[in-house]
Structures are given as structure tokens and as C-alpha cells.
């Protein structure tokens, strides 16, 4: 087959395809533009898909059991961004550290959704539906939150509208007009499948080699730009008069089963990307940052112990970050919120996971009520049906 430029995939066509396929699915319409003026306070939700290792993000360096479980995954003590005499941010989070100094960062450790198994699918289903169990076609909690709050407008930034925003309320969506980059993790998983195919395997390998030679730098910068472009767009949309006051962004590639690294490595690069994104969002928002809260959440945590391939496997509790000028009004507080369950053997869930001490829904419910002004009845009956009020434990 000839490989002339004219025969290359037409990226513009692909984008069009993606948009059409997405709009052809069970997605709500795009008609928010004519709706009422949005509220003053802003909410940005970042979903980390794949399960972020919370113990690497916010390191309990003061827990005596830590190094016994995962010495290979802990950066050198003198590189840690210490928050107090027990917790430290991973060195990649220099931007978050600055926010923390200004009272613009909240960290809740040992937090988990209602989910207690270890499937990404079901975990993300519950994370986004806000329900107790995984269901086949649930609505998203954020969509339910805005169904009766017509002054609230939400927008998904990305190729498709994620479950969290699906439901009866109409939401917007926007994606940059470049072909979505293939994430390296997906490619490496595909490569594993192709390794068993004696005909196709070597051919895919050749294609990947060519891609490395021709486009490595381009691809890399494009994938970073990929999420950065969404963040830029999020800031623009939140700043726009009459635009959405709620945005959702998705970031994948957190499933670090192998070689996740300590001070450097796969996970450090993800942390850096996340850290840059939040700094970039603050810059982009300008004055709007003062009434914004960013919620960063993931479907579950990872095992406390390092596994046989210098990574971690699916666990239970992780970390949630809150960021934004909107946090200053909550006053001074400990750097890390939530009771610490401890890492000693007897405290681990199923002998392997960080034990959750907070329900992620309780944290979100607090933000929805005190920051976004949603009535408590709505939050506890519709958004998170069955969630007991006042469940958030700050210490």
C-alpha cells in the first residue's frame, strides 16, 4: 500500500467523526448557551482514571511502617515537600506546595468512594454515579446536582461526556480540534497483546519504531498539550460571561502496575502534569480563581506494598485534592485532613490496602453545599441518595 501524505488519516475528518459519534450516543444535547446566567462560584472536577497512588502523592513519611512496605517507591527524604512532621507532598508537586502555603490547597487522605472491590470499571462507575453499587446505565451525580438548579451550567472538556455529567440535565462538551493522542499506556498494553501474534506483532512494532523516530518529540509534546489544552479551555469557559460554572476534565494513565518510580518515573511525570495543570488553571482563571474550587479525585487507591514489578496494584483508599482561592474562606486548617488509619500491618484493609476513613461523597457534598450553595436536601437525597449528612471527618 502506498503511504503518501495524501493517504494519511485526515485528522480533521477524525475529529468530525469523533464529535458525531459522541453526539450520536446517549448523550445530552449542547443547548446550554441560551440558559440562565450561571452562578458566581465555580467548580472544576478532575477525574484521574486508573487509580492514583495516594501514598506516593501525599507521602506519610512519618508513619514508621511506610518504608517497610514500599521503600523503593519513596523519594529521598530531603526531596520531600513536607507539609508537617508526618505528611509530605511528592517532590513533583511544587505548584501545589505553593498553593498550600497560601491556604489554597486542601488534602483529604485515606478517602474512598462507596466502592470496596477492585475493578476500574465498577470503581469509576460508582465514583461518577455517586451511588452505592455499580449499575449499568446510571446518571452522574454532577448531572443530578444541576438538574433542578437551572442557574448551574456544566461542561465536559474532552472527546465524550463522562458518566459523571450524564443524565437529564443538558451539558456542553468541547474538545480541541486535534486528533486525540494515543496514550503511551494504551499503546504498551496493545503491544503486549500483539507480542503473541507472529504476523501482526512485528508489524505493529515496526510502526511504533517509526513513530518513535519520526514523532517522539512531537507526540510527547502533543500529549502534554492535550491535557494542557483542556485546562486552558476550562479556564476560558469558566471566565466567559454566560458560560458554564462547572467543568469536568478527565486525565488517564494512573494505573501504575509496573515501574512507577519514586522521585522520577512514570508516576512522577503524571504528578508533574497534574501539578502544572492546576497552576495553569489558576493562571488562566485570574481573578476567578478566588471563587473557584478544583476537586481532584480518583476511583480508588493502590496497594500499600510495592509489588513484584516495582509498581502497585489496585487498592482502596487514596487522596483527594481540593484547590482554589475559594478554599481560603474555610480558614486555617491542618495541611492534611481526615483521620489517619496508619500503615501498620493490622490496620491495612484486607492486609494490603490503605483503610478508608472518609467517604469521598461526604467531601464533595460539603463542597456542593458550602461552596456551590446547593441545598443539603438536594445533596443528600438526589445527588448522593442515602448519604448521611455530617459524615465528613476532618481529623
Amino acid at each position, binding site marked *: *500500500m502506498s503511504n503518501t501524505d495524501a493517504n494519511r488519516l485526515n485528522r480533521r475528518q477524525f475529529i468530525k467523526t*469523533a464529535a*458525531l459519534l459522541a453526539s450520536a450516543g446517549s448523550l445530552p444535547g449542547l443547548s446550554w448557551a441560551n440558559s440562565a446566567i450561571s452562578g458566581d462560584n465555580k467548580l472544576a472536577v478532575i477525574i484521574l482514571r486508573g487509580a492514583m497512588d495516594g501514598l506516593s502523592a501525599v507521602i506519610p513519611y512519618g508513619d514508621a511502617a511506610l518504608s517497610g512496605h514500599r521503600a523503593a517507591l519513596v523519594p529521598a527524604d530531603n526531596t520531600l515537600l513536607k507539609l508537617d512532621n508526618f505528611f509530605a507532598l511528592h517532590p513533583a508537586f511544587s505548584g501545589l506546595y505553593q498553593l498550600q502555603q497560601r491556604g489554597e490547597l486542601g488534602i483529604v487522605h485515606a478517602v474512598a468512594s462507596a466502592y470496596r472491590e477492585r475493578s476500574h470499571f465498577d470503581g469509576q462507575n460508582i465514583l461518577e454515579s455517586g451511588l452505592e453499587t455499580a449499575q449499568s446505565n446510571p446518571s452522574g451525580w454532577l448531572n443530578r446536582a444541576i438538574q433542578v438548579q437551572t442557574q448551574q451550567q456544566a461542561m465536559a472538556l474532552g472527546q465524550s461526556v463522562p458518566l459523571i455529567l450524564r443524565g437529564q440535565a443538558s451539558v456542553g462538551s468541547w474538545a480541541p480540534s486535534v486528533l486525540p493522542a494515543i496514550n503511551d499506556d494504551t499503546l504498551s498494553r496493545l503491544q503486549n497483546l500483539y507480542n503473541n501474534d507472529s504476523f501482526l506483532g512485528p508489524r505493529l512494532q515496526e510502526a511504533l519504531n517509526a513513530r518513535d523516530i519520526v514523532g517522539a518529540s512531537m507526540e510527547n509534546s502533543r500529549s502534554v498539550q492535550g491535557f494542557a489544552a483542556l485546562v486552558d479551555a476550562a479556564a476560558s469557559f469558566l471566565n466567559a460571561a454566560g458560560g458554564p460554572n462547572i467543568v469536568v476534565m478527565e486525565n488517564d494513565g494512573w494505573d501504575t502496575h509496573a515501574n512507577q518510580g519514586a522521585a522520577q518515573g512514570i508516576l512522577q511525570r503524571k504528578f508533574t502534569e497534574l501539578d502544572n495543570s492546576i497552576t495553569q488553571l489558576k493562571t488562566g482563571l485570574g481573578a476567578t480563581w478566588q471563587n473557584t474550587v478544583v476537586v481532584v479525585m480518583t476511583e480508588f487507591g493502590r496497594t500499600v506494598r510495592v509489588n513484584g514489578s516495582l509498581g502497585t496494584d489496585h487498592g482502596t483508599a487514596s487522596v483527594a485534592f481540593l484547590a482554589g482561592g475559594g478554599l481560603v474562606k474555610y480558614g486555617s486548617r491542618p495541611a492534611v485532613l481526615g483521620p489517619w488509619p496508619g500503615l501498620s500491618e493490622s490496620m491495612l484493609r484486607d492486609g494490603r490496602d490503605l483503610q478508608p476513613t472518609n467517604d469521598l461523597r461526604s467531601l464533595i457534598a460539603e463542597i456542593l453545599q458550602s461552596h456551590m450553595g446547593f441545598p443539603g436536601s438536594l445533596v443528600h437525597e438526589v445527588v448522593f441518595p442515602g448519604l448521611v449528612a455530617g459524615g465528613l471527618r476532618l481529623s
Partner: protein
Amino acid sequence: MALYSPFTAANKFGLGLQPGEHTEIDKDPKGWLIAQLPLADRLPPRYAGMGNAAQLIEMADTDYRQRISFQQDNQLTADEQAQIRIAQRRSTTLQREQSNQRLAVAIESDTPFAERLVRFWSNHFSIALTNNKPSLVHAGLPYENEAIRAHINGRFEDMLLAVAQHPTMLIYLDNTASFGPNSPAGRQRNRGLNENYAREMLELHTLGVDGGYTQDDVIALARMLTGWNVNLPAQTGTRPDPQSPAGGFFYYALLHEPGAQQLLGKTYADTGLRQATAAIQDLARHPSTATFIANKLARHFIADQPPASAIAALAKVFTDTQGDLPRVHQALVELDEAWDPGMQKLKSAEDFIVSTVRALPGIPLTEDVLGILNDTLSSFNQRPFTAPSPAGWPEQAEHWGGPDALMKRVEFINMVAGAVGPDFDARDIVALILPADAALQLAIRRAESKTQALALLLASPQFQWRA
């Protein structure tokens, strides 16, 4: 005794399993295929009212002549420009409509084995819409329906004859430009033979290149075919037969080479139109044809290098039944070799796109979605009726599975999964469309998101093969 897997039935013989089809096929995979055969000549409802080949050839031919006549006087008037634009827009719309419907027919087909047989034969008797045949620009789809689909439940010789009398093939392989040198028209205008169609009929449609014919046989067949023409005006003026429909088949006696001809050792008296008809019947019944067709069927449906036993068995049924196509098609399904999971075929680009959408039920086939899937098909170099040569689309995995082509498939799936990933659960779908494969199922279960899981499923090597 073969194990009749529903996956083989739907993926290897058909156009790809749809998740909902499984229980029906499970009951009797082989019977499910055979039951489709009597339905193979149904015209899919989507094609109703789309125009026949004669009309569409006449229309394109008229438009082309008009454009040429306008351009002859150098200066196009505004009115002429407008007329050309209108004709071009009409043509673009019609081409898009045809491509879209053809893709939708495959995606929606509830007789996918029958539909693949139609496309196999359409590719066996391949035509291409090339720039130097402007009258054919809309003729591919009606050709497939009129010459191929309508005769798929007859004998091979019926289809061969229908093709030979179809205006699309006669124009595509230049038989309309072939004059008997000693015919009245040939003498008067000093024109001669064009061997193109005669050669391809022997080499590609019947005997095969090693089927035992010589250059003299090509010339003899070309002479017999002179006068097999299309009822369209020459340069200017009226068409040869104002009584019969424009654009249709027309036997033009004034072009026919007089005299008896000798083909493969047999003498054919000059009976006009019927001279070539008799030759075509004999070609269809020639032992080389049986072997050649058996080989092509086996290479298309079983493996790039099919076992000799399978080819021999198909050739025997072809010969025994005098080329009765439904019985040959059934014989294919009855072959143990065809159900051997070790025998596999790499999907063509079209099969890959069709099976992808079949695996994702619920994506509505709007004009926009179909148009863009067709654009994708073009970027994979497989726009319908644009095969690179009269031999049709290649069969070999090497053709469809080169590194760049694979990367394009991965990119396409990455985009599709990015768009619809949250709507589908690959953990459920995988078991419904592919045989159990521990590595694939594990990879999907371990995927970090629904989107990634769907991408892994549809970009997997397992999904690229028919097995």
C-alpha cells in the same frame, strides 16, 4: 468432524458478530449460514429507488458531453458554469449517497454471509470508477446489484453472462471501443479490436492466467465480443438504437467481426450476438474455471494459502453442479477446513470498519456518521469500486496489515473509543464477539477505563483477524 463455532460463522463467513446476534447463531452456526443463501439475491431496502445502471450511465454521460461541449468554445458563460456546477453537485451527492448506503447495508445486514458473497463476486468481476471513464461515475453500485446480486442464486455462467452484457463492465474494460476490423463500422472508420475485456475474461474471470489459453484465444474471444456494446451516442448525435433504453446493453451488429472463430480448439460459427454467448457458456464450464473459482473462494473465505483439499472439494462441486452458485456456496460452509480455527484471514479495511460498528450497537447510522466512516475508508485506501486493477482488491494479509495500515487502525479505534467509550462495556462485548481468549480478556479487565478497554478490544490483533 469440525466444531461449528458461532464466532467462525459470524466473523469468518460474515461481517462480524453483533453482540445481540449470539444466541441465535449459537443454536446452529452452520445452519444459520446456509439459511442465508436463498436470501442472497434480495435487494436491500436501502437500495430501493436509487436508479439503475443504464439511467445513471446515461446521466453521467450526458453531463460529461455537455461539459466537454461547453469547454470547447474556450470561454465559459456564467450560465454554462452554473450548469456544470449543478451537475457536479448532483454527482457528488449521488456518489456520497451510494457509498453511505453500501456501508450501512453491510453494517445492518442480517444476512451477513450472503452480503459477503455478493461482495466477493462483485470483487471477482471487479470494476473501478476511474477518471477516464466519466460515464461510470455512479455505475458501481447498480452494477453490483444488477449483474452480481441478481444472479447470485443462479449458475456461474448466468452471472458471467450478465456481467458481459452489463454496460458497466463493457465500458470499464473497453469493449465498447472494440471494433471488428472487417465489420462495416470497422472498415468504414478504420478501427480495430480492443482485447482488454477478452483477456481479462480469460485471465481474471474464468480460466485463470495458467488456465491454458493463448494469445490467439484472446484475439478470437475479442472478435466474438465485438458488437457487445452500450446504447450511447458516439461523439455526437443520437444513440445507435433510439428504441431501446439509453445507457443499456446493446448488440451493435455493425461492429461485429464477421466469420467463425476458434477458441480453445473449438470452432464457433458466426451467429452474431450468440457467438460470444456460446463461447462464454463453454468458458464457464471449463475445468480450469472450476479450479480457478474454487481457489479464489477458498483464498477469500478460508486462508491466504488454503489447503489443496478445500480447493479440490469446491472445484468438484462446481463441476458436478455445472457452477450452481448456491450449492458451491453451501459447499464452502460444509468444508471442515473452513471451520479450522488455525485458518484465518486478516480483515480488509472495509471489513474492519464494518465489523467495528457492528460490534457497537446503538450508534445511529446517520448520513453524517456514514459519510465520515466512508471518509475513513478512503483514508484506508478502500473506497468502494476503486480497486487498483481489474483483479480487484488483494486478498493477502501483507496487503492489509502493513505497519502503517495497522497504525491507522489503532488511531481510528483510539478515536472511536474516545468518542463512545463510556457507552460500552468491553468486558461484556468481548465475550459476545470473539472466542474466549484469556490474554485479551485479562487485558480488557485490567484496562484503566472503559474507553481504554474498548480501544484494546477493537484494536487487538484478535479483532483484526477473521477466524
